[in-house]
């Protein structure tokens, strides 16, 4: 496949035969991530904090027919689970990656035996890992603070969650590919972030959306993820339709990112 990723010298060297994941680079990126209080808060802390705030409203702990007999706090657990990966994938990662390209950090790495793709893979592992940690934290706090039942179909839940993380990272990679500067990455990231949060159900969990809206939202990556998580939480295997939507988005976005990503 002749893609922008591969047709420059930097691209060729970036995607060469050397291992794609470099442990030293990954370790260094994790260390740098820990020095970003903003990212730490919004990715790891905020989703659970939101859950705690909503769960502290007494009315949110009463079963509500609008929520299909669930308590609002139950419905907000999957929302919190998706929130961290939206912030990490759409806001934090594209800005970091675009900055690495803008400031020549990818280029400097390409003068060493390690390929700049090692920085890309480290960033994806890092934000993927942070998103999953954030999700587990939200699940744990939901369980212990508000008695929200853990997913009754844990394997289906894990599968839906991993697919959602992959879709978020792929979307983040596309944003980074399309942004020449960190500022542009921030702007596109925010423009995509709010619709993504809406689809994930931050303002209105998908169960409470009108039918037509819920169906449309179900075709978006985060809407499909929310639906799949809800089904798995309730003990059903997540619908193949929702999982299929997530896979399709991931494939499409990954192809777009590798088509447009520039190393310099």
């Amino acid at each position, binding site marked *: 496949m002749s893609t922008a990723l591969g047709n420059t*010298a930097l691209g060729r*060297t970036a995607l060469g035969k050397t291992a794609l994941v470099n442990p*030293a680079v990954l370790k*260094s990126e994790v260390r740098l991530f820990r020095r970003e209080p903003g990212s730490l808060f919004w990715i790891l802390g905020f989703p659970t904090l939101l859950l705690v705030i909503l769960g502290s409203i007494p009315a949110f702990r009463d079963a509500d027919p609008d929520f299909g007999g669930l308590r609002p706090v139950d419905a907000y657990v999957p929302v919190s689970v998706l929130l961290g990966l939206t912030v990490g994938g759409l806001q934090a990662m594209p800005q970091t990656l675009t900055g*690495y390209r803008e400031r*020549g950090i990818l280029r400097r790495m390409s003068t*060493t*035996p*390690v390929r700049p793709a090692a920085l890309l893979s480290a960033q994806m592992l890092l934000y993927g890992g942070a998103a999953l940690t954030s999700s587990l934290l939200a699940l744990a706090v939901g369980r212990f603070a508000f008695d929200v039942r853990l997913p009754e179909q844990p394997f289906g839940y894990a599968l839906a969650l991993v697919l959602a993380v992959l879709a978020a990272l792929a979307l983040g990679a596309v944003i980074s590919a399309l942004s020449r500067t960190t500022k542009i990455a921030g702007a596109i990231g925010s423009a995509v972030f709010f619709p993504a949060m809406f689809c994930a159900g931050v303002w209105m969990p998908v169960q409470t959306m009108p039918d037509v809206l819920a169906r449309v939202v179900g075709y978006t990556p985060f809407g499909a993820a929310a639906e799949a998580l809800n089904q798995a939480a309730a003990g059903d295997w997540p619908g193949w339709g929702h999982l299929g939507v997530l896979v399709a988005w991931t494939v499409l976005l990954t192809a777009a990112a590798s088509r447009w990503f520039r190393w310099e």
Partner: protein
Amino acid sequence: MASTPMIEVTDLRKSYGGRPAVDRVSFTVEEGEIFGVLGPNGAGKTTTVECVEGLRVPDAGRVRVTGLDPVTEHAATRQVLGAQLQESELQAKLTVREALELYAAFYTRPLDWRPLAERLGLTDKLTTRFAKLSGGQKQRLFIALALIGNPRIVVLDELTTGLDPRARRDTWELIEDIRANGVTVLLVTHFMEEAQRLCDRIAVIDKGRVAALDTPAGLIRRSAGATVISFTPSARLDDRDLNALPGLASVEYKDGRVTLSGTDETVNAVITLLARTHVTAHQLRVTDATLDDAFLDLTKDATTTTGATEDATKAPSNDTTKEAAA
């Protein structure tokens, strides 16, 4: 042939959007040299070294680094070649020590970063984050990163641009020190003083071509007006006599002072002329032209004639250029 040259560039060509940036550039760098690539901005210097570094794929021609192809033998080339890039940063919150440790982990036989940091005066900055370093400290860190893999060749691109004179001189000592440690240096610069002081040989690149390739002294000797004679004559000299001087490149009268540029022959002829006409020369000075003068002369030639490459092949000490002749 003796040993494999450290760098071999033959008939290198690279265009951007149909406009040639590098057009049939050839040169060879031998082990232990400080080899300068000198030229005006936009002459094709950086593109040339980027092809050597394997960051760009040449359109045509051959590039070898210790016999390796920097594009197809990527990892092996980078084990022997370290590069400091123009306008390339590090993560803002990475400390000096972390950067050194990280980059050391990329190589099979890295140097110990502690003595390296010491040599580059970074020891008291080890816990400082990249964003907090001064321009000179950043440059020293980049040199350290270029050297950490224990390379045989190091490429330094516009290393001293933006440094104050003190830091620049310190950097020059450092480059000499690097060579003294057995590392071959490819130095890209547009500072004549720097090239004259440091380089064993210089390729002057202008408009994507090698305009000349020689030692700094050779380049100066080769340019018209390599010697400058100036004096204040006790009486005005006849213009015809002056213009008839052998090897004369230029004459200038200013505030009663004559400045001539030419060759050693011109110097002798001037002295004879003065003796013959009984004119006394006050404050007589004979100086060598600088590389600056030679450079302006060489790049001026390239703009008025297309003979830049022929010029390079005709040069007596230019044994490594295999231009146009082919």
